[in-house]
């Protein structure tokens, strides 16, 4: 199937973009990428199977209405049968708009390649990761918004042709007044490794041992909801049903009980390590590796062991 992949500005080297292009490649047809802004580095997506990258470079900031028009123009230009997004905040605004505009069914939060033997169905996460659904799409053009970390990017070699593209984006309707990006830190939804802590850490002054571990690992930091609510940690670190949902390869949780609403945001993690002083903590039921112990002793020891490992490798 001919596929079109939308990639965010400056995300040509992001893992989530490699995943989306790999996914498109596996659909078996020609793969075109569409983006706007600076085209630098776009050809690198060829390594994951993109044949061509169309870049609308007359614009550097766009709202979801404009991006919808851009992707719709690219679908028309390429005759794509499937449109792929990585399921991030941009996709959550653009993909539904595009569904209406193109009269194309949307699969939101896909976690696997589609089954095409009998119709077109795709597996998605439902009930905050507590179950899966199998969604059938009945329209000619299909839109898939792929959850990050659902498939492994595959470098198949090659470079893509980069072309400028007129996206007919129209006027901007959302005026950006100010942008705030936390500096230095790894954005939680994109992180492969996450170290998280909860009320068991007793107070914000104790987060040094959490950050030390995160630094050695190159991990992002996260926290449980009460910790963000009482202001020990910033709100954007709050994971769970009412916070950010993440699916890293490794989630290390210290001093978090593992309430169902917390699990809802982290149960997509590939491997979960739980450190808790209470052997009855519910989190152990969802863990792959468990340590019953005092986080104040275990975290520094783990940091130490990782340093030794990094030095030896």
């Amino acid at each position, binding site marked *: 199937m001919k596929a079109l992949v939308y990639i965010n500005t400056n995300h040509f080297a992001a893992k989530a973009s490699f995943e989306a292009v790999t996914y498109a490649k596996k659909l078996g047809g020609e793969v075109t990428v569409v983006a706007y802004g600076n085209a630098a580095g776009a050809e690198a997506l060829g390594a994951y199977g993109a044949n061509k990258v169309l870049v609308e470079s007359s614009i550097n900031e766009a709202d979801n209405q404009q991006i919808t028009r851009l992707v719709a123009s690219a679908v028309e230009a390429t005759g794509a049968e499937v449109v792929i997004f990585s399921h991030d905040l941009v996709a959550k605004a653009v993909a*539904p708009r595009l569904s209406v505009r193109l009269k194309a069914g*949307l699969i939101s939060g896909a976690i696997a390649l589609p089954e095409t033997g009998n119709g077109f169905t795709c597996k998605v996460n439902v009930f905050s990761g507590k179950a899966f659904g199998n969604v059938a799409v009945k329209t000619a053009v299909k839109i898939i918004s792929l959850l990050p970390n659902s498939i492994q990017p595959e470098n198949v070699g090659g470079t893509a042709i980069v072309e400028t593209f007129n996206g007919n984006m129209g006027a901007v309707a959302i005026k950006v*007044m100010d942008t705030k990006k936390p500096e230095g830190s790894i954005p939680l939804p994109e992180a492969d490794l996450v170290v998280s802590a909860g009320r068991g850490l007793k107070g914000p002054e104790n987060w040094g041992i959490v950050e030390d571990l995160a630094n050695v690992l190159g991990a992002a930091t996260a926290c449980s909801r009460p910790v963000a609510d009482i202001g020990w940690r910033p709100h954007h670190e709050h994971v769970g049903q009412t916070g950010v949902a993440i699916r890293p390869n490794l989630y290390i949780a210290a001093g978090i009980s593992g309430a169902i609403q917390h699990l809802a945001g982290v149960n997509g993690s590939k491997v979960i390590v739980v450190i808790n002083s209470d052997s009855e903590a519910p989190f152990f039921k969802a863990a792959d590796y468990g340590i019953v112990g005092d986080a104040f002793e275990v975290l520094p020891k783990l940091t130490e062991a990782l340093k030794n490992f990094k030095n030896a490798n």
Partner: protein
Amino acid sequence: MNILVCISKSPDTTSKIAFTDGNTKFDENGVQYIVNPYDEWYALVRALELKETIGGNVTIITVGNAADESIIRKALAIGADNAVRIDAEPTDAFFVATQIADYAKKNNFDLVLTGKETINYNGSQVAGMVAEFLDVPFASQASKLDVNGTTLTLEQEIVGGLQIVEVSTPAVVSCAKGMAEQRIPNMRGIMAARTKPLEVIAPSAVEVYTSFESYSLPDAKKACRMIDPSNMAELVDLLHNEAKVI
């Protein structure tokens, strides 16, 4: 300001998730439904706060069956002025968005508010679809919303940060944490809700775009492997050689 708030139901977060009819239907046995938290805590309460400061009207709309009237009454008890129920099973987001957009087109709203997602299907689809049907701007996952005449000032999450943006009404906004504080309905609100207008409307016909064919549950997790707290080198070794995540 004339505000439409989209309200959906979701199973109470502690509900057991199970399926019946050969895994094609959610098992509602013993399930307690609540108003989807994002719709109730953030979208509805912020709409009421805006009405209280600048005046106007707050209408709630839900696409659902007669059984869903309990969540409508709850929203009315919290303070909405009137309610609309589109009398149909909410089969997919496209169906729901079509119904909401059809109603909104006929009734001239300055602002349509939704939650950021439903906690059962986690689709984040309905709001963007409604915005496209109405051909208006869509501010998604807003954590703050202020109104000055026809200008909305919002704080919204973006990939890797936050943005302050301005949009003109009419617009659609999906609401996330930070927008408002949960309100508990009081006795007077509960009494008043009984007599507030609830209009029931037949659905428009919609082509089926997507459908849930079946469901499944994750494989049971294998037992957690316990590691001695004094032996973190073993954990590191397992993470490297067995789990292959570092």
